[in-house]
């Protein structure tokens, strides 16, 4: 659902957006975050770092520079996601992307939509549809480290 087009404050935070194609697709809300949105949830905030928040039962919770990336990969592995070689759209495969900063800490996740566009929840801000590189950058979410995918036939 497209809500509006360009937004200067978003482009200041995510400079790559300005040179690409993106759309804001939700109101601003603190009710869920990118990890939840990558998992197709929009009613709770996922976090392994506080017991007040939701994190899938049985998932690891270690969250420092040595462990956080593996924690995230293993958490999504519990929902049948496995590493993919390509971020290209493949019919029948649901893909998510994990972004990391220069220290290797996960900063963000995005989920692929049909036809290869990506959707992201920007922390406590809006959802956007964007290109994969649109939220990359040193000032933004760093860079895409890994693409995970699962068959949509099972879900």
């Amino acid at each position, binding site marked *: 659902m497209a809500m509006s087009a360009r937004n200067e404050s978003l482009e200041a*935070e995510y400079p790559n957006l300005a040179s690409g194609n993106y759309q804001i697709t939700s109101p601003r809300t*603190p*009710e*869920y*975050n*990118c*990890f*939840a949105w990558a998992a197709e949830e929009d*009613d*709770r*905030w*996922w*976090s392994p*770092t*506080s*017991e*007040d*928040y*939701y994190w899938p039962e049985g998932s690891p919770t270690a*969250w420092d520079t040595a462990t956080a990336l593996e924690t995230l990969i293993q958490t999504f592995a519990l929902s049948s996601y496995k590493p993919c070689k390509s971020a290209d759209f493949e019919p029948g495969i649901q893909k998510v992307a994990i972004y990391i900063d220069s220290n290797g*800490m*996960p*900063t*963000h*996740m995005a989920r692929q939509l049909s036809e290869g566009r990506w959707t992201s*929840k*920007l*922390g*406590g*801000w809006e959802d956007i549809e964007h290109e994969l590189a649109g939220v990359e950058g040193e000032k933004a979410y760093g860079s895409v480290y890994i693409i995970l995918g699962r068959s949509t036939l099972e879900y």
Partner: protein
Amino acid sequence: MLSDLSQKVIHPAYQRIIGMGQDAVPLLLNELSKRPNHWFWALRSITGANPVKPEHRGRIKLMAQDWLCWGRDHGYEC
């Protein structure tokens, strides 16, 4: 814009609020009653309480209700 709460709560502004101690509790409860947001870590740090029901984890409107209920039980007007 961060999704990782551990990064949000170490922000200097958030830490200054925690540094206010008990004086911040009524202000945070009032804020939760009007605009539920991620003040739960600060409230836990200051009060040592954890009134969020397990089934409400991550659902911030319900988490706010749990904290407001705790506040009323502890003499706060909220």
